[in-house]
């Protein structure tokens, strides 16, 4: 079934490319460069010690990209090559802070696409079909807080209250929004939009498959609404195989109130393992055309150990004084409730800026 599914996509893709390239002369070519710098300063406390960090905001890392497109009769062939250029990503912070961390130059996108009335076919490294389906967010504060709560805290280790020693469990071990497989080398197909709805499917290395459904709509009196559902089957990809579904919805009212919800569940293939669940809610307010503020709550259950309840609370404020510049501040608290262990909470206060160039 999988082979048939992938074979059909591949045959369609190759046929389309061949026909279009052979019969249609190119009529417009564009090549563009863009990027952003996103840096933050964070104070964090693990219950025993605290420290200050300066590094890259892993919510939306520092990066640059090249995009290009060539338009044929009704079909646009496109490329996207994008690199992360991170010095000390916030997802790697942990106490004690001993230096500037590592410099990472990594590939985000190596994508070739063909788009037209038939939809869009993508080949190469890029978003799997279900990536971002748990991360719909219209709050305007997503540069510093969104459902991927590990981006600013993945590396922090919980401290055992009894011994005051590291427990060996990090925030990243116990939290996940069960979004799709992120960016991977895949063959992906996106349908055209029908009244705001679209669907996508992708196949990636390790026989992993992702499918998703998307909706975006803007209404005069109701505001903006966006929603997505995703499903992942990792098959043989990675060390831990699982099936996973997720969904998120975000609504922005015309007067600025916004509500975001995200849910997800992972069902590991390993015998005897337990399903893990995640829920996330954010309520925010956009005001004065350049300000946005929000509060959030999220919890992941049973991810690292059966019975774990890993929770976070947060608040965030973002101001956009100029169209290309965002300034932000946020505070977050992470708790881990584990049977048989008493662990300290981890708290963070952070501020930073994202500048698009």
């Amino acid at each position, binding site marked *: 079934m999988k082979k048939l599914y992938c074979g059909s996509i591949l045959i369609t893709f190759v046929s389309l490319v061949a026909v279009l390239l052979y019969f249609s002369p*190119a009529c*417009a*070519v*564009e*090549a*563009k*460069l*863009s*990027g*952003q710098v996103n840096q933050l300063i964070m104070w964090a406390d693990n219950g025993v010690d605290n420290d200050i960090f300066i590094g890259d905001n892993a*919510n*939306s*890392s520092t*990066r640059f990209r*090249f*995009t290009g497109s060539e338009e044929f009769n009704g079909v646009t062939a496109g490329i996207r090559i994008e690199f992360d250029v991170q010095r000390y990503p916030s997802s790697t912070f942990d106490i004690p802070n001993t230096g500037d961390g590592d410099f990472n130059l990594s590939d985000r996108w190596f994508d070739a696409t063909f788009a037209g009335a038939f939809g869009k076919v993508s080949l190469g490294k890029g978003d799997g079909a279900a990536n*971002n389906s748990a*991360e*719909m*967010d219209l709050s305007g504060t*997503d*540069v510093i807080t*969104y459902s*991927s709560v590990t981006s600013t805290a993945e590396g922090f280790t919980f401290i055992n209250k009894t011994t005051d020693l590291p427990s060996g469990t990090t925030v990243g071990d116990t939290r996940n929004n069960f979004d799709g497989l992120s960016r991977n080398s895949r063959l992906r197909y996106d349908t055209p*939009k029908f*009244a*705001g*709805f679209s669907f996508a499917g992708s196949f990636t290395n390790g026989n992993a498959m992702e499918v998703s459904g*998307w*909706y*975006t*709509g*803007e*209404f005069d009196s*109701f505001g*903006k*609404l*966006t*929603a997505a*559902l995703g499903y992942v089957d990792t098959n043989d990809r990675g060390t831990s195989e699982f099936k996973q579904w997720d*969904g998120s*919805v975000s609504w922005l009212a*015309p*007067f*600025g109130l916004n509500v975001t919800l995200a*849910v997800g*569940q992972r069902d590991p293939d390993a015998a005897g393992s337990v399903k893990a*669940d995640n829920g996330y809610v954010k309520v925010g307010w956009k*005001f*004065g*055309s350049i300000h946005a503020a929000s509060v959030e709550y999220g919890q992941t259950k049973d991810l690292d150990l059966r019975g774990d309840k890993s929770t976070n609370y947060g608040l965030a404020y973002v101001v956009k004084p*100029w*169209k*290309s*510049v*965002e300034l932000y501040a946020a505070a977050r608290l992470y708790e881990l409730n584990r049977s048989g262990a008493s662990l300290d909470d981890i708290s963070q206060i952070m501020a930073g800026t*994202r*500048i*698009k*160039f």
Partner: protein
Amino acid sequence: MKIKTIIMIAVCIVSIALLALSGCGGKPFDYNPPSEIPEGPGVLSGEDGEFTLYDSKSDKRGKKSKAAAEADVPAAEKSGAEKTGAPVAAGEKMPDSKEYLEFQEFQEWKKDKREFKEFQEWKKSKQGAKEYQEFLEWKKWKEFKKWQENQ
């Protein structure tokens, strides 16, 4: 009630709500995920938010050819009044007067288009909607005064 049941009910409610809303004429928009580079201008790249390295419609980077400009500028705009005064960039070849004026008109049109987009966004904002309403009322009042004077 189990969490799974609650989630399934929530998913069904959201799906039904979306289907119902889609029937109300919502306009689809392009959603930009939180982890991606935001839409909009850049500090160095300006309004486009991207450096144009190559554009087949342009003579060179960032400047459209006469043919492309003609294709983009509506006929009504092209027949507008002649505009003068924009300096020619250093090192740029001085074009003949017709071409030069046409290019200026194109630049003006691009600027107007940008400003009009900003105006539309302002009108949609809370503050803008209020001020725009006031402006419409003021216009009505002016018409009324004019009508009164003519009586």
